[in-house]
């Protein structure tokens, strides 16, 4: 039997089927579905007995609060704030302990190399370059991730995410997007690449592309620690945790608003169309399995993301050290590049080093802050850095103001997604054009917003 024979055999069958059921006159689908459902009803009716109602209907109780007209949105913000507060407050101490420990090891490594009479560049490249960048990534990134991921997985396991979709759906509908976009957006909090993969649940290609192109506007786990550290810098003092939490929540809400605005713009311009039909199940709440949630989010997510960051941090550390120590015309390559980018950086309320860090951070957002710290330290006089206060002095020494921190947070929130995400977008969309746009649209928005904020602030004389 060859292909032709197969087709003719199948075609004969189809013709026969058409004769039996001309023009779908049997109304087959309706009848089949109804019959199966009524059989299911009969069978279930025969074997299920209900012995009265349970004392408390927890689904109803919880939904009455979490999706209510009055408490729906406030409770959503409150949950978000609580998760961030736990992350901010809980990550602080382990972060400092990790930093102290890892930098103690760095000193021992240097001593060891000195004892071995190794050349100075070996210590520079491997210890001050690669090791130090690694130490920064681990101490800045690991604690917030290890706290945020389990909290997030807990909400996911409980069944809260569909409620977010239920609450926000009307906004997405008005933006011409699909209701499930709020689910993919929620996944983006964990990792934008995962968020982009989750866009598969949206069937309409137009709406799926909108969701993929805007997923970047929710800060992923690689960017949270940066946002948290910068927010901490902004509000040094007794109310640090509370203030930092408020700022991070504000940034996230701004990101969600940007998502909606850009979705709306896209559905009016590049991706014109009307919202497709949509149904959403609100599953019963389930008691999350604490043990499983913690192991799963640590092993599946935290360690995976950390490993990726570590692999990216090593070459990045080497590049930063080399460019800070190879001099052309008496000035290091790093300074050359930073000076070249500086005028543009200043326009956006930042400086050349920050933009450099974002460029070098393309492979993984996790390394942006560590690279920045390393660049500043390579060009400054400070050698010891073990607390937020020291970080603030380092940044202040490089001319930072509150505006610099705000602009860097905004840029971090809005700029292009990391390599992994872009690669995922190109795989999922199968289109080079949309991948490029997925980088350029956020970049354009980040530049516009930072420019506006910086120029307004200086025009109003706030700075």
């Amino acid at each position, binding site marked *: 039997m060859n292909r032709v024979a197969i087709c003719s055999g199948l075609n004969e069958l189809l013709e026969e089927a058409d004769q039996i059921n001309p023009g779908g006159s049997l109304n087959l*689908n309706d009848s089949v*579905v109804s019959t199966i*459902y009524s059989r299911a009803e009969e069978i279930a009716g025969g074997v299920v007995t209900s012995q009265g109602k349970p004392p408390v209907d927890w689904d109803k109780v919880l939904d009455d609060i979490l*999706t209510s007209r009055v408490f729906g949105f406030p409770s959503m913000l409150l949950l978000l704030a609580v998760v961030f507060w736990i992350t901010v407050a809980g990550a602080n101490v382990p972060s400092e302990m990790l930093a102290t420990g890892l930098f103690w090891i760095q000193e021992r490594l240097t001593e060891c190399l000195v004892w071995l009479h190794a050349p100075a560049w070996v210590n520079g490249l491997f210890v001050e370059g690669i090791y130090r960048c690694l130490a920064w990534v681990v101490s800045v990134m690991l604690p917030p991730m290890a706290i945020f991921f389990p909290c997030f997985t807990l909400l996911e396991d409980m069944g809260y995410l569909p409620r977010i979709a*239920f*609450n*926000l759906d009307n906004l997405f509908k008005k933006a011409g997007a699909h209701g499930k976009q709020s689910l993919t957006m929620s996944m983006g909090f964990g990792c934008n690449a995962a968020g982009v993969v989750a866009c598969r649940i949206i069937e309409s290609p137009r709406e799926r592309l909108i969701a993929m192109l805007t997923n970047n506007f929710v800060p992923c786990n690689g960017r949270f620690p940066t946002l948290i550290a910068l927010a901490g810098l902004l509000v040094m003092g007794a109310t640090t945790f509370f203030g930092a939490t408020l700022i991070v929540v504000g940034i996230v809400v701004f990101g969600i608003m940007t998502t909606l605005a850009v979705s709306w713009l896209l559905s009016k311009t590049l991706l014109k169309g009307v919202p497709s039909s949509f149904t*959403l199940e609100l*599953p019963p709440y389930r008691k999350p399995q604490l043990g499983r949630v913690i192991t799963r989010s640590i092993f599946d997510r935290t360690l995976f993301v950390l490993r990726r960051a570590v692999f990216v941090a090593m070459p990045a550390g080497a590049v930063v050290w080399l460019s800070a120590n190879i001099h052309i015309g008496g000035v290091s390559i790093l300074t050359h590049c930073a000076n070249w980018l500086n005028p543009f950086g200043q326009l956006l309320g930042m400086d050349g080093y920050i933009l450099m860090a974002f460029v070098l951070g393309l492979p993984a957002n996790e390394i942006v802050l560590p690279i920045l710290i390393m660049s500043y330290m390579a060009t400054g006089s400070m050698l010891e850095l073990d607390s937020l206060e020291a970080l603030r002095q380092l940044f202040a020494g490089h001319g930072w103001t509150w505006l610099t921190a705000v602009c860097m947070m905004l840029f971090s929130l809005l700029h292009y997604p990391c390599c992994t995400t872009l690669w995922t977008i190109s795989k999922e969309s199968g289109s080079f054009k949309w991948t490029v746009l997925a980088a350029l649209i956020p970049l354009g928005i980040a530049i516009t917003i930072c420019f506006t904020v910086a120029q307004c602030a200086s025009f109003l004389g706030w700075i």
Partner: protein
Amino acid sequence: MEYKQGDCPTKIISLHDLPVGKLATVSSIQAAGLTRRRMLDLGLVPGTRVKALRISPAGDPKAYRIRGAVIAFRKEEAQQILINYKGE
């Protein structure tokens, strides 16, 4: 979940107009094509009991209990589902 055919005349309205907390039975589905097939798959065959449960704080969609599951429809979809409702 009690619904008795009473003396009160039943009227046919769209699912979207079913008040929260009220029960009704599916009369027919106006949608065609894929949307129709999907609604049937959710168990919305004629005679199925549905209950309006809650409205999103943003005004739309509404959630309904359909054969044991809670399913939310946007206004556009719910308007394509006609129900027999015994109003008071």
